[in-house]
Every structure is written in C-alpha cells, then in structure tokens.
C-alpha cells in the first residue's frame, strides 16, 4: 500500500477535480428532485449531449463560446422537458415519471451516437488552460485547477441564489412545503420551469467542462449517472449542501481507494452508499434544497 502517496498535493487536487464535476452535475439532479420530486434518469444523457455539443460548438467558436452557449441550449431543452414531460405528468406516480426520464435517456443516447459516431473524441483544453503548473513542487494540469475553481464558484453562486434571492427562497419553500408555498402565492409552475432549466443547464455546463478533462464517448453519460446518483442519495435526496459534501467525500474515497485498495476501488463508492443508508438513511444533508 502506497501510504506516502496519500499525502501528495496532486492527489488532493485530483479528488477535488472529480468532486467539482460531480458537484455541478449532482446539484442539477438534486434541484430537480427537490422541487419536482422526480429522479431524472436522463441527466447523464443530457450531460453527454452537453459534452458532444461542447465539442462541436468549440470547433466553430471556441471552448469559451461552448462554455456559454451549450448550458443555454441545454436550459432551453429544459423548457421542453418541463413543459412536455414533467408538467403533463405531475399527477402521475413517481415511478411513471422516472421511467419516462429513463426512456428519454434511451432516446438521447442513440441520437448522439447517430450524429457524432461511437469512437471516443478527444477535446483539448483552450491554449490558456493547457499544460501544467508547479503546485507545491509537483506538476499539475492547469485545466484541473480551472475545473476546481469553476466547481467551487458554482457552489458559492448556487448557495447565494438559494439564500439571498426571492426565487431562491421560493425554491426552498416549495421543496419543503409545496402546498403552503402555493397558498402563500408562490407560482410553483414558473418556479419549476426555472429550476428544471437550471438543472439541465448545469448538466450542459458539466458536459462542456468534462470534454477536456475526460474522454467524450457514448458511455460517459451512463458511467457518471451512477456516480451522481450515489452522490445525491448519500447527500440526502434533494439537498444541495448534502450533494456538495457527498461529492467531495466521493472524490476523496475514490482517490484513496485507488491508491490503497486498487482492486477494490470500484466498490468503494457503493460501500459508502451502503454505510450511509444504514447509519443515516436520510443522507448527510439537512433536508430538501438546503
């Protein structure tokens, strides 16, 4: 076992980079669940679509153009998702809606394969973020530091929106007491549209950010969705703060597992899920959209 590797600054940064990507993605999933009570199984497919769109838009404009445009396109898809799927089905059982989102994932996946093919695509970071810098004596990729920065900024922005804005306050209210919030005059339909757009927009943002970090390939949506679901359940269903904490824990245990128990590393996140569900079934967070 390589215990000395655990003290490496690059391993700490690796954990934070993975946590950042998961935080952005899981926040979107938690937001939609918090407000709509729906586990969106199409979230991984939307993230994959975001990554492929990021690749194509990046070729025409630039990485920075893709970083702005793709989340907006995915947010627009969120409008269709909310008005065409979630709202008409809001009175149906949770399982029905979850199955519809699963079906959407099954449609988006082959559509992406048809348009972009099945061979993995390599997306390079923009010139200003390529290469490595010395980080406490160790070389570390600039792009990963950028990813950590974006992940941290997203968390701060999301927390500020929820805490200090009227729509954020309404989101917290509706996720905790939807009937009371409605009686108090909160327009839940309009709020739901906003939150679903934010959620799908986050999946697009995560997809574009994942391009230069990971491989853009047809399996990326399914792989990350499992990690994301673990993060959301460990964090507490619908809890943003819990999802952020769970993403950081996930990143660290993944890195620690790879170093200390490489043959069992793939099982470590599931062990975390198992332990949290036994010890604290409601998850680590303090409740819905908190």
């Amino acid at each position: 076992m390589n215990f000395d590797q655990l003290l490496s600054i690059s391993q700490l940064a690796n954990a934070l980079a993975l946590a950042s990507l998961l935080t952005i993605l899981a926040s979107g999933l938690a937001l939609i669940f918090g407000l709509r009570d729906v586990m969106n199984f199409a979230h991984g497919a939307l993230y994959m679509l975001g990554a492929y769109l990021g690749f194509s838009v990046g070729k025409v404009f630039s990485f920075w153009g893709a970083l702005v445009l793709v989340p907006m396109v995915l947010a627009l898809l969120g409008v269709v998702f909310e008005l065409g799927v979630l709202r008409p089905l809001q009175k149906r059982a949770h399982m029905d809606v979850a199955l519809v989102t699963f079906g959407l994932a099954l449609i988006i996946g082959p559509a992406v394969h048809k348009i972009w093919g099945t061979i993995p695509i390599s997306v390079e970071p923009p010139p200003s973020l390529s290469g490595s810098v010395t980080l406490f004596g160790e070389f570390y990729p600039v792009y990963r530091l950028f990813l950590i920065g974006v992940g941290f900024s997203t968390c701060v922005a999301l927390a500020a929106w929820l805490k200090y804005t009227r729509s954020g306050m309404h989101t917290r209210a509706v996720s905790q007491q939807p009937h009371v919030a409605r009686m108090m005059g909160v327009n839940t339909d309009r709020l739901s549209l906003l939150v679903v757009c934010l959620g799908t927009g986050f999946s697009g943002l995560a997809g574009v950010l994942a391009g230069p970090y990971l491989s853009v390939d047809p399996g990326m949506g399914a792989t990350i969705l499992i990690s994301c679901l673990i993060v959301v359940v460990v964090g507490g269903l619908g809890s943003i703060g819990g999802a952020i904490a769970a993403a950081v824990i996930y990143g660290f245990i993944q890195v620690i597992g790879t170093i200390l128990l490489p043959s069992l590393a793939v099982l470590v996140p599931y062990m975390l899920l198992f332990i949290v569900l036994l010890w604290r079934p409601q998850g680590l967070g303090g409740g819905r959209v908190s």
Partner: protein
Amino acid sequence: MMTFALRLRLAFTAAALTLAVPMATAQTQGPIKIGLLTIDSGPFATHAKLIEEGAKTTIDILNAEGGVSGRKFELIVQAHTGSPASAVAAATKLAQQSGVSMITGQTLSSHSLALVPKLESLNVLLIDAYSQSNDLMTKSCAANYFRVNTPDALTTKMMESYVKSTGSKTWNLIGADYAAGHSFAKGFTDLIQGMGGQVQQSLFAPTGTTDFGSNISQLSKPTDALVVTLFMSDGSTFAKQQKQFGLFEKYKQVIGNGFATDFQLEGHGDNVLGVVNSLSYVPELPGARNAWFVKEFESRTKRKPFYNDADLMLAFESFRAAVAKAKSTEVSAVRKAMEGVKVPSIIGELEVRAADHHLIRSHGMAQVVRAPNGKTMFQMKVYTPGPEIFPAPNPECKPV
C-alpha cells in the same frame, strides 16, 4: 393387413420426411450463416459499429470473390450488453435460433472463456478474432475454439527483441483490471524479469474509469519505461489525462498494447505521439492479395482497413478454407478441416496449428509518428513472421 394406427403412423412418417427433405436441402444449399457478436454498452460499445462495418465489408468482399463452393456467406449480427453471461446468451441465440455454424466478433477474453465450454453443445465453432488471453491457448483450449488474432503470449514474445533494444531495465505498468490486462501484465513481467529487469509498479484500472489522475500521480515517480495496456475509451481518457500531466515526457520509452490503436489514432491526436504499440497489421503490408483487399475495402467504406478488419478477414478466410477442404458446412467436418488447414490470406499463406487451434501469423510493433499531412500515423518498426514468435503448443492444451 395394416391396422388404422399403423397406417396413421406411416402417414405421419411420410409427411415428416416430405417436410424434412427441403429443410435439409435448404441448410446445405442456402447461404452459409455466420454469427457476429457485438457489444452495445460500456467502453467496448464504442468499437461495435466499426467491428460490424468491418465484418459486413469483408463478407461482401469474399462474396464478390465467389464465396465458397458456389455458396455465399450471410452475416447475422447479435448485440449484447458486454458481460460474459450476455455473450453466452447472444451466442446461444445465434446458434439455436439463427442456425449459424460459425461465430466471431467482439469477444473479450472473459466472453471467450465463458463460451468455450458451451460451444460443443451449441454445435457451433468460435473463430476468435478479438480476445487475447493466454488461457485460451493453454488450459481453456476446446475442440470448437479457434483463434486468428494475436494472443498476449505472442505480443510479449514479439516485444522481447524490441524491449531489449530500448535498453530499459526498470518499468512501470498500467493495465485494465480484467482478464486481458492481467494476462498481459503477467506475461510482460515474466519477460522483463527474464531479461534481468524489474517491473516496479503494476497498476490496474477498472473498466470505465473516469479519472486516471491518481494513477498518473502514482506513475509520476518514473522508471526507465512505461507500458500501457488500456483499451477503448479508457485508453482515450488515459492518453488525454497523461498529456495534461506530462507523464509520457518523464519516460525514455512508452510501449502500448491495445492502447495506441489504429482506429483510435485520429481521436488520440498528439496524445500518443511517440508511443510504440503492438500492431498486427497495417494496410501498407506487402503482397498482391493485401493490396487488392485494401483497394476493395476502401472502395466500400471510404477508409483503409484497421487491424480488426484484417483479423476478421483472417477469420473468414480460415473458415472459407476449411469449408472448401471439408466440402461441407457441417460443424464437426469443418472443425476437423480447420486443424492444419492452409489459409491463402491477405498477409500471406498461413496455417491453423492443429495442436492448439491457433492461426500461426505474423505480428509487429509500430510507432506513432507525425504524418506528412500534420496528423499522426503508424510506422511499422518490427514485423516478425508467426513461426518465429509463436510459443510451442502448451501441453495443457488438448482441444479434443
């Protein structure tokens, strides 16, 4: 005088015979059915379309050449999710419902190992063009199993002279955490130790690893050389992430096995520039039949054949030679004919070794270099004939 019951029995027998004759005629006179297994989820799904395109094209080329004994081949594609159990279910469907007599395709080592015990009861041949595990030429040999691609033992043997030429004594290794990765790692470690060297770190990454950062950080305490045996999207992710860390620059030599492959080269970009990878085929290999194959393939697909396309062609060429020799498509007759059959192939006249059912074929090492058009291309550095690098048949292998 016949009783009513006897007359009824005779009538049924006659009816059954009347129906059976055309069915038997159809099986011996229609197209020869070949099954193709593909994977439609997980990292290997990225390769399925190419495998399907390659198989359809090579079958089309062989049919245009006349098929065999006046009969054409018909390819039946069966996709599955990628687990050994789903591979067995898909092969069973091909054999029992589609009536194929031969199966090939995207068979990972774990799939072939799971299929081997079932082949005889399914009455089908598996002519493997994909899996690399050494077990399939030792303890897991089977009567209905044949292999035409390059097993790990061949790759490590073929690497031997190349590794010696690098002068590297200490090595790090990163491989896929499943049968093929471990099988290669064991063979490569034995090779290095046999040469007086040492493999200092052997890391294994699970299929579908998202972030190789922690593996790369561990490999950043470099040795003389690094060997990478990661496949498909895992290989792409690792290649890109190592570039960001500048990992390969820390090694004097980087060797790949199934890593910097031809069909992924464009996607890899400069991430694998300089890597020397085992590669069994390049379109530029000499020979009139190969030149004809490349021309026919390119005219149909608008791309040059990759090594997997060549391996599939070898599987079909071997099967065709055996059917011609057996003058039958009956599985037991073709199996017998496969043993020792001479195959006039795109890479020369080859032979299927009867002792372990392996096609004795050449293998090579090619380096990723800068192409004149600014992209990257393979340059064959070593290409060794099969008889010089194939290990002797293993006594454990008894394909009877």
